């Protein structure tokens, strides 16, 4: 009996070593690559993303890893440079032999490496916002931030209920800004809203009073600004200074309390759609996302001493989705991970409840966003 047990144990051991070596994982760790814009112009995205990914992986490894294996996270800093993103993607795939890649932070970079991941058949879970990342669907490419068409539709729905008819649109000349402006122009007529004027400004613009003077002359009922920092704090300030009293709508890029602080009193009353992370504590107790959101928020703020942002949340979702896929995949092959990712359904993340399918690699619905506003320097639900 004892001998049979020993033989079985040995066989099991040999088989498992064989199994592991099949997966090119001699060290017993699972390698996940990450490309984030930790420095450079998009560091406000990449820095919290990299910190989040590090924190999540540390936590998982401390609790015994996934399926008994430790996760090795290899983070590359692309500085929001698409060329760097391309070379890092190739390096991660060919030299580091990672199982999957999370990131990049920006839409521009993601679009550059979409084809690379597709042709090398490496699962990519991106943190870029633009809809083009998953439309058309590439079988190995997923993304965690909510689609920008949802954002546009939410803005218009809210405007309709407020009786707003004529609006002015301003957007930064970035991939994010242009994509958002495009979505607004695409859906405005569906909601019976007229875009009286649409303008693009330099992403590093420091004073936009001249542009807003032009909008003011058009007598618009509301202004939509689709940009990231610094303009999303400058537009509200400049509007107040010009004495423009119409409501200001912003994109989901406004999802960091720091931007509210930067705009100070001028931020009061800004309306924007965002994931529920920003109002985690204010959610009803039974909400499926609440537990995860509060856990992530508390852990992040305790570890890094800075406020949580929805951007870090996108990285949290990306890591957690890959881990979830590793847990449910039959083996640690890239193809199996891809299949497992696509099969994920009803997974509560920070951006919403993810349910992927062959035709939907974003996996979030309109209900993943809430209309928020700024009240007394805090994010709150729009009443």
């Amino acid at each position: 009996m004892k001998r049979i047990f020993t033989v079985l144990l040995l066989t099991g051991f040999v088989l498992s070593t064989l199994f592991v070596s099949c997966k090119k994982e001699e060290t017993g760790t699972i390698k996940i690559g990450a490309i984030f814009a930790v420095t450079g112009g998009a560091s406000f995205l990449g820095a919290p993303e990299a910190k989040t990914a590090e924190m999540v992986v540390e936590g998982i490894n401390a609790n015994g890893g996934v399926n008994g294996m430790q996760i090795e996270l290899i983070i590359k800093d692309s500085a929001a440079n698409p060329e760097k993103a391309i070379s890092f993607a190739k390096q991660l795939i060919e030299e580091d032999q990672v199982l999957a890649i999370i990131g990049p932070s920006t839409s521009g970079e993601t679009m550059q490496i979409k084809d690379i991941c597709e042709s090398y058949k490496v699962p990519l879970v991106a943190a870029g916002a633009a809809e083009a990342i998953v439309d058309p669907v590439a079988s190995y490419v997923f993304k965690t931030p909510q689609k920008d068409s949802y954002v546009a539709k939410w803005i218009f729905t809210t405007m309709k209920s407020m009786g707003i008819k004529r609006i002015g649109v301003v957007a930064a000349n970035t991939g994010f800004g242009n994509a958002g402006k495009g979505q607004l122009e695409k859906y405005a007529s569906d909601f019976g809203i007229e875009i009286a004027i649409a303008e693009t400004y330099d992403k590093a613009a420091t004073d936009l009073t001249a542009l807003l003077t032009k909008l003011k002359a058009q007598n618009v009922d509301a202004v939509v600004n689709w940009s990231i920092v610094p303009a999303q704090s400058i537009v509200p300030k400049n509007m107040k200074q010009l004495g423009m009293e119409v409501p200001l709508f912003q994109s989901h890029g406004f999802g960091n309390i720091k931007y509210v602080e930067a705009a100070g009193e001028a931020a009061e009353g800004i309306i924007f759609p965002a994931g529920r992370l920003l109002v985690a504590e204010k959610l009803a107790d039974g909400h499926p996302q609440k537990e995860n959101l509060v856990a992530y928020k508390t852990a992040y703020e305790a570890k890094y001493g800075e406020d949580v942002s929805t951007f870090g949340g996108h990285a949290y979702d990306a890591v957690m989705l890959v881990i979830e896929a590793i847990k449910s995949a039959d083996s640690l092959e890239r193809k199996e991970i891809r299949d497992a990712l696509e099969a994920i359904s009803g997974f509560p993340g920070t951006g919403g409840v993810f349910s992927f399918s062959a035709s939907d690699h974003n996996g979030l619905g309109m209900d993943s966003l809430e209309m928020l506003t700024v009240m007394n320097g805090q994010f709150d639900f729009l009443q």
Partner: protein
Amino acid sequence: MSPEQILQYIFAGITVGSIYAFVAIGYNIIYNTTGIINFAQGEFVMLGGMISFTLSKFMPLLPAIILAVLITAAIGGLIEIVFIRRMRKSSVLGMVVVTIGISILLREAALYIWDEQIRALSFFTGTEISSVNILGARISPQVLWVLGVTSIIVGGLYLFFKFTLTGQAMRACSENSRAAKLCGIKTDSMVNLSFMLSAGIGALGGCVVSPLTQTHYAMGTDLAIKGFIVAILGGLGNPIAAVAAGLILGLLESFSISILPMAYKDVISVIILLIILVVKPSGLFGSKQASSLKDF
């Protein structure tokens, strides 16, 4: 366009123009004593905003700003002693490259000391939402501060260069550094002073505009480029002309927005620069003879 709107565009143009001028003044002061373009000038503006923001948590606004200006001026002086003084024997072009290196160094140091977050100094008078009505145009009270400080700097520089011995000595260095040395002027000290002066002025500008434009560790590069355009436009070597050129460029940009989409703003300013350089290579206010004597 109604008169109120025209006035509004004028104010917008002057605000932006003053920011350009702050950088361009710094270029000119250093150019005058050394003949080099200091591409780290935009970083001085950034440092002024960052340091004063940090200090303003521990003390009232005014001492925070004064201290930030002094610290940045000291950094400027230190840069001259550590890097520029040793390199002075090398070519002008070599030194320009050194200043680009310094700008990268300062930027990365700022990222390390602070972080990637955007900061804004609190408004000197009023808050983000205060607005002053001037003949129907509405502006932030901070704009008046920017204009006031710009005027004081311009007036102060004019008096300094015209009437003080040190100012005259600095001008002498710019005319002919060897002759100045023979007259007993310590050219090394003058160069050092010029770095401190332009760093201090840049920092002061950074403090005054911070509530409006906000401060970010990487803001220097864009400022350096616009400031350079303005310095060339006004004619290198003339700080007062730089202010005029800054205001002209700001106004042109502002009014171009009223007619054309804002996306073309930078195209317009570059086209104007090219036209002026073709028609009058020494800049709007520069003299042809003087520019032919300069290294570049």
